[in-house]
Structures are given as C-alpha cells and as structure tokens.
C-alpha cells in the first residue's frame, strides 16, 4: 500500500469521475486507505447534494414578456424565398411541371432578347420613340395638374424659374412625402408599444 495520502487535487480528480491512466493508482489507494476514503466520501456528499438541486421555474409569462421586447426581423432574402415558396405548388409532380414551364418561358425570353440585340438599330429607334412619347405624356399631365390646382399664373412662374424651379418643387414634394411617411411610422410604432 502507498502510504502517501491523496492531495486535494487528486481527491478532485476522483470526485470529477476522471478515468485517465493516472487515476487508477488513486482509486487503488482509496480502496485501501480509510482516511482518504472518508475524505472522498465527504467530498462526494457535497457533490451529490449539489447535483440533486432542482431547477426553479420562472413565471409562466416569461416568454411573452421577452417576445414583447424582442424585435423579430425577417431578412429580405428570407422574405423573398418565402414569397416564392408560397407561390410554388407543394406536390412534387406539380413542382416538376412548374419547373418545366418556368424553364421554357425563360428560354423563350432569352431568345427574344438575343433577337432584339441582333437588331440594335430598330431597338434604339423604338426605345427613343417610346421615351419621347412617355416624356410628353408625363409633362403634359404634370402641366394639367399644376394649372388645374394652382392656376395659369403658377404655371407661368414655374416656367419662368426654369429647370431649377422644377427641381426645387419636385424635391420639396418628395421631402414632404418622406416626412409624412416617417411621422406616420413613428406614430404607429409608439402606439403599438403603448398597446
């Protein structure tokens, strides 16, 4: 028998249930030494008492209280994926059919793009024509709106002020719209927090 009693850290190794090569002699010593066995038993009483301690349960409304204060954001890519998956059929054959149709449509569109690209002059001409018509339509509508709301004099002032005046007017309109949206959003957030 080894007459050296176990050191505190050696008792800890046994308490922790270590099973390494160096632990076997410690176990052998404890088996033969009453004093070390008593120290180990004392240590094990503490550990057993600790491990028998129960978990306490918090209030059952903890999850609700936490979730009321945790902002849950759905990232854009997840929202897009969810939207796509909502439109896709769930059955496997229907999904296969949707894939075939989607591939066919994409192929036809690609062919159409290649055909248009090979006729570059015609595309540029058609695009220019469309842009001109769109521009005159937008400007005409805007003029009609200004004249009907503010009168001819306002239109004359606007025309006199040139591009800068139009730019200031458009920026003013956008700023007011943005400010209104932000104010409404803040109001909605505040009222939902209060609720």
């Amino acid at each position, binding site marked *: 028998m080894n007459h050296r009693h176990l050191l*505190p*850290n050696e008792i*800890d190794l046994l*308490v922790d249930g270590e099973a390494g090569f160096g632990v076997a002699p410690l176990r052998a010593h404890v088996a033969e030494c009453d004093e070390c066995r008593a120290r180990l038993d*004392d*240590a094990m*009483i*503490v*550990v057993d*008492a*600790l*491990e*028998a*301690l*129960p*978990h*306490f*349960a*918090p*209030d059952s409304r*903890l*999850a609700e*209280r*936490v*979730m009321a*204060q*945790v*902002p*849950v*954001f*759905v*990232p854009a890519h*997840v*929202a897009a994926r969810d939207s796509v998956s909502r439109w896709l059929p769930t059955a496997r054959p229907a999904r296969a059919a949707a894939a075939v149709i989607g591939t066919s449509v994409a192929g036809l569109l690609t062919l159409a793009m290649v055909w248009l690209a090979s006729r570059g002059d015609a595309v540029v001409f058609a695009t220019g024509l469309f842009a001109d018509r769109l521009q005159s339509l937008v400007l005409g509508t805007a003029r009609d709106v200004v004249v009907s709301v503010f009168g001819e004099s306002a239109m004359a002032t606007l025309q006199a002020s040139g591009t800068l005046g139009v730019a200031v007017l458009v920026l003013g309109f956008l700023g007011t719209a943005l400010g209104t949206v932000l104010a409404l959003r803040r109001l909605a957030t505040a009222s939902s927090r209060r609720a």
Partner: protein
Amino acid sequence: MPHALDLANLPDADVVALALEGREAAHRELIRRYERPVFSLVFRMVRDRELAEDLTQDSFIKVLSHLDRYRSEFKFSSWLFKIANNVAIDHLRRRQLDTVSMDGSPHATTPDAVMASAIELSDSSESALEEMEAKELGTAIEQAIARLRPEYRSCILLRHVEGRSYEEIATTLDLPLGTVKTYIHRARHELRRALEHTRE
C-alpha cells in the same frame, strides 16, 4: 419552416439559424429550452425571485436581440449562460448583494414580500425521514451556496447543477481553466465545511 413539434427535436444551432431568419417560433423554442436553467442560475446568484425574473428576462432579451453576434463555434447555451451570469454579477456588483438569506430577500419590505422571495425546495424522496433529511441537506447547501463569493457560486453551479465541463465553464465565464479549477476546488471545500454540522 419546421413545425413547433420539429423545433423541439432540432439542435440549438439549427434553432438559432431559424431564429435569425425571423421565425418567432424559434425564438420561443430557445426560451422554452433554457428558461429554467437560466432562471435557476440567476435566482441562486441573487436570491430574490422577482429580481431573478427581471434579470432572466433581461438576459433573454439581450441574447435574442443580438443573435447575429452569436458565434456558432461555441455552444449556444454557453453564450446564454455567459450573458445571464454577467447580468447577475453586474447586478450584485451594483447592489453589493454578496450574502443573503434563504428565508427571503433582504430587500423585501413586507412579510408577504419576504414569503414570496423565500426559496421553496421540493424533493421526491420516498420516506418522510429521507425527505426531511434531504430537505435539510438541500436547504443547508442552498444556504452555503448563498454564502460563497459570486465567482465561486457561478463556477460551482455551472459545474454541478448544469453539468458543464471545466473547459465550458472557462469559456462561459471568460476565465483561465486553472482559475476555474481553483474556484471549484475552493467552493467545494467551503461547502464541505459548511455542511459538516448537518452530518454530525
């Protein structure tokens, strides 16, 4: 998206990934898994039920609001315990609430508040005598834990109540492994001395 029933079978890392995708059910699943261990740790640190409820709530709000900062090479539970422990330790430092009573919160001002904050222990021992002895030992060890230094208390609770390894505790508490071993050794020693009278 997996149903609630499936969520219960997923590992933490997968539930965290779903929570990061904005799934509220995944957030709730993480709370369901860890509300008891976290509350127990915090309660045994601060010894005040109402306060422990608030600190547990704060811990979960911090964790779930900053899930994007979670590093997946660590266990989610270690990160959660780290935050809960820091919240409890910060509170103890602010209030200097190192030693407290099993009989109720030292901050309770009315008899009802004292009763509400007192720790109740339950045990499933078979005989009345065993139950009484176990309760006595359980009460004694709860009192002894309450008298430990907070850093010893965190280590010993994580080791023996939560069953964490020394390495996990070192990671959770941001302490060197040797320090964790020392704290646990000293905590066991102090608890052994505190429990000596119950065995006499």
